[in-house]
């Protein structure tokens, strides 16, 4: 038997380590590294490598558990929601009940295991398909977390020692998460690849009946797998809470899809029975590096979404063609995924070319590449003059890099801010390089990642609109420690995390102005309702707090009937408003406190035919203009958002070039003229009331 083994040694080394052609991902990673080293600033540094670990840790933990689940032929959609559940468990125990952090973590982990057990038991004992069970618990876990905290409560008084787990370093540069993550990864690897339990998972993933006949306790194994998945989700929640310094019901929203993407990109077959931990880690690295690299190259992060879609398909097609998996009539009915095939050389070539092409799609859209290309082509003459002994040309004045972050890139509100920022950048001519990036949904953890990437990239000024104070302040302080100037705009962080705040209105000012306008429209009596963004939205909750305060203090005859969420969607705002008007016929005014909520509520009032109900709120003139003219929306309270973006860029430039410093009382801001500075607040002015007389003067 030794003879054939020796003959196939060359093949089997590759196959032993990469049984699923995971080396394909190595090529992909090499392409990414090469591409981003050329285009991204400071991409190829040790610090950045470690920062990648920090941003990938939580999804990585989920992906480890998900690999086990998918190998059994199942899927677990509930892990992101379980993070929310575990986070509030941890937060409540530690912050409210006063349980020390270690037992609190233990209980949170037990909660994760319990949730996982529930999934596993429903799947194994009742035979309900995993997709459905976990679709149900995906809603259930998140719903319980939101219901128990009403979506509002944000636990944020954790000890510094706990927060260091998420933000601290060992030996100056190794993130604290790294040892934990490595430990778990090695543990899961041993479990899957070096234990009987692991082999049994593969067996039952290939064929449940076969495994049963072979004496595998299928039910028990399935339950254990989901328990592990839940446990790792809870662990991810602990790391998440430590990194952000807060625990809230919305922790981990959308993480399940990222984890599944990493796992299938890593070559794990969605039909079960096939996959490796190494592959999952490589898939995770590919995704995390893609996002990080694009950021360091100053690109929009949306590009990474498109790229991830392409990569998924390319990788899967690679596996498909490589394994000859097209034999079945329809993809999912072809069950030869458990069989072994060799990949042919030409197929490798096709795959590599496809990946290079997809990488070039990004590169093609990358202005930096274009710039560098033109630099390259311009380089030889310069070298020639140098050789000729001419003095070297003076180095061009260093461009100032200003990075602006909105809370949510997709919000019309922030788009109009960007308009002003672009205007200011254009006015400053070529002296400023301008970066604009942020989460596509209001997501505090994404904000931290973006700022971390900017620190690595080395920008001059960071101007952030803060989704959550506690969550972002650590990373902003880190930026300041590295000599980056920090400004907050739109929404503030804690005072020692930034140099200045460009203040358009305080939450108290907004809440008070909204309540006063509501009282004026209602004639100081009656019932009103609020349509907010989502129940977990941090800013809206702060405004609601001040609206309620003002209501209690000044308007005894006004009653707040209900607060409904709109999930940031105009059509949801409309549906909810229609229903709430019918359920509460005495409501005479609807206050929308998110940009899409006001037009949504107004449309509902129009369609209900009610003439006695008015809408007010906080939104953009462009979204509400027609409703203001129709008289449905009485007024909206806002400031000049274009000016806000404009002023922020000016303040950032002034701060970086030393034109303003602590103690300054005024600054010059282009077309806005002299702007007052009070303490560390750059003041834009008071909230402005847009009504039918003035709304047409504004085009944002």
């Amino acid at each position: 038997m030794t003879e054939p083994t020796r003959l196939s040694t060359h093949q089997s080394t590759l196959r032993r380590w990469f049984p699923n052609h995971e080396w394909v991902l190595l090529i992909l990673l090499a392409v990414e590294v090469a591409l981003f080293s050329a285009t991204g600033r400071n991409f190829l540094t040790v610090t950045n490598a470690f920062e990648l670990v920090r941003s990938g840790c939580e999804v990585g933990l989920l992906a480890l558990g998900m690999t086990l689940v998918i190998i059994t032929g199942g899927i677990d959609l509930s892990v992101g929601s379980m993070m929310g559940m575990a986070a509030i468990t941890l937060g409540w125990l530690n912050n409210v009940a006063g349980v020390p952090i270690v037992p609190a973590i233990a209980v949170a982990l037990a909660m994760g295991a319990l949730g996982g057990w529930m999934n596993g038991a429903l799947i194994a004992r009742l035979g309900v398909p995993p997709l459905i069970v976990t679709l149900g618990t995906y809603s259930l876990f998140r719903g319980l977390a939101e219901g128990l905290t009403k979506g509002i409560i944000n636990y944020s008084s954790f000890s510094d020692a706990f927060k260091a787990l998420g933000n601290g370093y060992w030996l100056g540069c190794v993130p604290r998460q790294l040892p934990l993550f490595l430990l778990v990864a090695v543990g899961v690897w041993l479990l899957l690849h070096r234990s009987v339990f692991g082999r049994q998972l593969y067996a039952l993933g290939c064929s449940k009946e076969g495994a049963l006949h072979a004496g595998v306790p299928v039910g028990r194994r399935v339950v254990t797998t989901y328990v592990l998945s839940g446990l790792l989700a809870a662990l991810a929640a602990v790391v998440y809470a430590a990194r952000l310094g807060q625990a809230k019901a919305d922790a981990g929203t959308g993480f399940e899809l990222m984890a599944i993407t990493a796992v299938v990109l890593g070559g794990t077959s969605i039909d079960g029975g096939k996959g490796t931990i190494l592959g999952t880690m490589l898939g995770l690295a590919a995704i995390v590096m893609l996002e990080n690299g694009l950021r360091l190259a100053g690109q929009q992060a949306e590009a990474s979404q498109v790229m991830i879609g392409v990569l998924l398909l390319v990788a899967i097609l690679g596996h498909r063609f490589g394994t000859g998996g097209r034999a079945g009539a329809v993809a999912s009915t072809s069950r030869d995924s458990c069989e072994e095939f060799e990949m042919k050389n030409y197929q490798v070539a096709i795959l590599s070319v496809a990946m290079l092409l997809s990488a070039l799609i990004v590169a093609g859209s990358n202005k930096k590449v274009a710039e560098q290309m033109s630099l390259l082509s311009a380089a030889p003459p310069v070298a020639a003059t140098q050789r000729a002994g001419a003095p070297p040309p003076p180095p061009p004045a260093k461009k100032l890099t200003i990075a602006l972050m909105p809370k949510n890139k997709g919000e019309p509100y922030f788009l109009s801010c960007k308009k002003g920022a672009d205007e200011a950048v254009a006015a400053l001519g070529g002296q400023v390089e301008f970066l604009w990036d942020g989460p596509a949904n209001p997501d505090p953890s994404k904000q931290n990642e973006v700022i971390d990437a900017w620190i690595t990239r080395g920008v001059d000024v960071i101007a952030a609109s803060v989704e959550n104070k506690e969550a972002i302040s650590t990373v902003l302080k880190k930026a300041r420690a590295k000599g980056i100037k920090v400004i907050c705009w739109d929404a503030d962080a804690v005072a020692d995390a930034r140099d200045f705040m460009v203040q358009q209105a305080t939450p108290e000012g907004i809440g008070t102005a909204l309540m006063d306008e509501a009282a004026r429209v209602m004639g100081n009596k009656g019932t009103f309702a609020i349509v907010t963004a989502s129940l977990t939205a941090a800013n809206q909750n702060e405004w609601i707090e001040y609206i309620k305060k003002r209501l209690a203090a000044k308007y005894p005859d006004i009653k707040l009937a209900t607060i409904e969420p709109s999930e940031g969607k105009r059509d949801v705002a409309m549906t909810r408003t229609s229903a709430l008007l019918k359920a509460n016929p005495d409501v005479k005014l609807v206050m929308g406190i998110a940009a899409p909520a006001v037009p949504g509520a107004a449309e509902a009032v129009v369609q209900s035919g009610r003439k006695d109900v008015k809408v007010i709120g906080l939104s953009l003139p462009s979204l509400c203009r027609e409703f203001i003219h129709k008289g449905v929306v009485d007024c909206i309270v806002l400031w000049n958002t274009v000016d806000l973006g404009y002023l922020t860029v000016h303040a950032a430039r002034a701060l970086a070039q030393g034109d303003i410093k602590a103690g300054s009382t005024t600054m010059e801001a282009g077309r806005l003229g002299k702007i007052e500075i009070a303490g560390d607040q750059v003041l834009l002015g008071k909230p402005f009331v847009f009504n039918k007389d003035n709304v047409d003067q504004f085009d944002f």
Partner: protein
Amino acid sequence: MKSADRRVLTVAGVLGVLLLGLAVAAPGFFQLGNLRDLIVDNSLVLLPALGMTAVILCHEIDLSVGSIFGVCCVVAGGLAQAGFPMPALLLLIPLLGAAFGALNAGLVVGLGVPSMIATLATMVGIRGALQWFTQGAWVNDLPAGFQWFGLGQAAGQALLVLVAAALWLALSWMFGQVAAGRALYAVGADADAARLVGIRPKAVVSGAFVSLGALAGLAALLSSARFTSIQPSAGTGMELQVIACVVVGGTSILGGRGGLTGTLLGVALLGVIATTLIFLHVNPAWEKAIQGAIILVAMLGARSHSVDRLPAERPVAGRVPGKVVRP
């Protein structure tokens, strides 16, 4: 009684109890205006749910439906601004949706990518491209004839509901009585057996994906026509909502079992939760928990057997690995 029927009855029962309870606790729920709102809103969920039922009956899944919906909304707005008449849009937008459906079908059927992964990729990719392209900007300043197709609110709403109802009726008849509809069940139950009796599984699965795309496009257009501007993040999260409606309605995720009566009930049951909570004055924070509980309870009707025991008879899905029949 067949298990699919049992599940339809379970859902009907839960819905009935809920409505009876509401009649006692909050009779205001049954006022005409509220019922009209509920029917209009849920008609828009029903349309993609019809297509999703077809896809799931084939033992496939489509996660990209929300992204397709979003793109179709934005393109509809863009075309309307460019002066395309509404009847033309009524043709073009479903075609655009169908084109995306064909892309999915090509990946799944042509290239053999598992549908879960293929549509995960198109979901992420299409949504990313849309955000990249629009940067989140709304499509404003639509022509006057855009809202309600220029028909006015009452007629526009009626049109919307009629389209959904007509499609539900037509497809119900097709699923039950027409060869093409029955083929969905055959392919979902056992693709190899279906091929042996002369059905072309690839064509059937492609048809299901393309129809889902077209229905998502139609829903996008009808949904956009309720407003005077378009929000590009429309449709986010829609895929799981639609899948939940279909499986709560008793269609088996393993393919081959279920139908549109159940889907209609599933849409109705999940569609009234939010409104019910508003009428009962319950904090909306509990909505997702209740939705999750309903999905799980409905699933108890779907239980087949513990994985620990071998089934008494061969499972309907019939996909015992290693038994791929090759003629």
